[in-house]
């Protein structure tokens, strides 16, 4: 399994609290202000009246749901809304994604990679949370461009 994000992984089972930072500060770093902000105050949240494209996916393991409506004209994403529920990572990542693609050309949006999403989140995503982080990208790829069963995971 490909390990995403910056949190190192591998054979060691080190699990100790590192250095002098108490856990709480680490967590606040982990769930950065602006992620919590995007979670609590999601941007572009809701539905569009008459979307050009609309798709929803869930992550059955934890019950996260994200749906995206797009209004496209002349190859430009004129408007976007997302709806859903779930953990902070999945909802913040959806909110961030809508900010990224609004006003973009479909062609550019098509090129958004997993790495872009991780970068937008700006935090280390542990393997267990990768699916949360990439759910909105999956909705975009599968729904809007019919990329079949793109699962957000690399195969080895």
């Amino acid at each position: 399994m490909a390990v995403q994000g910056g949190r190192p992984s591998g054979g060691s089972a080190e699990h100790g609290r590192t250095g002098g930072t108490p856990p709480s500060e680490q967590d606040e770093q982990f769930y950065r202000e602006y992620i919590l902000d995007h979670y609590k105050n999601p941007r572009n949240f809701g539905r569009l009246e008459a979307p050009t494209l609309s798709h929803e996916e869930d992550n059955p393991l934890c019950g996260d749901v994200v749906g995206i409506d797009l209004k496209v004209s002349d190859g430009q994403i004129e408007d976007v809304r997302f709806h859903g529920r779930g953990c902070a990572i999945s909802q913040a990542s959806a909110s961030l994604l809508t900010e990224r693609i609004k006003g973009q050309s479909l062609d550019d949006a098509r090129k958004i990679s997993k790495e872009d999403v991780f970068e937008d989140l700006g935090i280390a995503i542990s393997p267990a949370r990768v699916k949360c982080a990439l759910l909105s990208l999956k909705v975009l790829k599968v729904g809007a461009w019919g990329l079949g069963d793109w699962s957000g995971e690399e195969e080895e």
Partner: protein
Amino acid sequence: MRYDVDAIRADFPIFETGIVYLDSANTSQRPRQVLEAMDEYYTKFNSNIHRGAYRFSEIATEHYESTRAKAKRFLNARSTREIVYTRGTTEGINLVAYGWGRKHLTAGDLIVLTILEHHSNIVPWQILAAEKGARLEWVDIDEQGRLRQDQFAALLEQSPKLVSFGQISNAMGTINPYAEMTAAAKAAGAMVLIDGAQGAPHAGIDVQAVGCDFYAFSGHKMLGPTGAGILYGRREVLEEMDPFLAGGDMIRTVRKEGTIYAEVPTKFEAGTMPIAQVIGLGAAFDYLEGLGMSSVRAHELEMTEYALEALSEVPDLTVYGPPASERGGVVSFDVKGIHAHDLATILDRHQVAIRAGHHCAQPLMDRLDVSATARASFYVYTKREEIDVMIEGIRDAQRIFA
């Protein structure tokens, strides 16, 4: 004798890592006695069983078979022939669905399940029902997560062919009145399978007193290694079942023209079995017997009471399920405004391992109208202090998400 949790913890090398492990309903930790039993096999008499004509193979066979005697004693079965080795609960239930269900179920037959079931006690019956045109009915729960016995009684009046339910719910912790339910179902003429995945590790069972036809459980949830479990089946029932997996060892004679199967339980044990793991499971039975199942239960009850008490003081926190006296060492809960996954991630930073998700019980989640819960579960090695660390972590999460 006092229950000495520190002495017990000293048997579990994992605790040297500093983890606060509150996910034992998922899989337990294993004491060194279990690991040593397996290493002894691998390094002192490693060989295949039954087939060998030399000393190592004889010793391995004895060790392997001695687990059957231990399981018989643990369950109070009549005979070691009633003990079938499996990979775990899931394989055990599937074995019954294939070997008994495929043979005996026909169109229109009724199978009764409950809304508390784990997917492993749902999907095999869904597949079987679809194949045979049988019906599934579900016993609902009341507001405290107890099975609705009125509904169960009503369903029994429809003469189900099979009733299959868990002894203890892994998602809510509910201890079902399994003895009463089994008696009623038997009186109604049904076959009864009890999913003992949570019951065997935390409460044990007397299969003769309870009178169930099948009892399936997993070694890895009761201090044993991964890869080995047990299906108890009443001998007469096992004997008239079709075999399940076919191949080496489960046969008496194989001819091109046809095959005669071995006697039970060998008929159900095809191919090279998880020899080392069955031996390890034997050491787990020994360990639990040493503690005594009533002490295990008493310790878990204490931990559960302590946890419920402590959680009740956390604001904006909902606990699912019945009071401590009616539950195994499992507490499922929800913190307002914090998704269970976020909570688990933050607890992980405090070195606390809990589970977040649907706990392989989606129909129950649908019934509760939640998509996921956080779940802490306890076992023989759990300490009060560990629950304190969890509570501290929950409060930290609340600060972050405030």
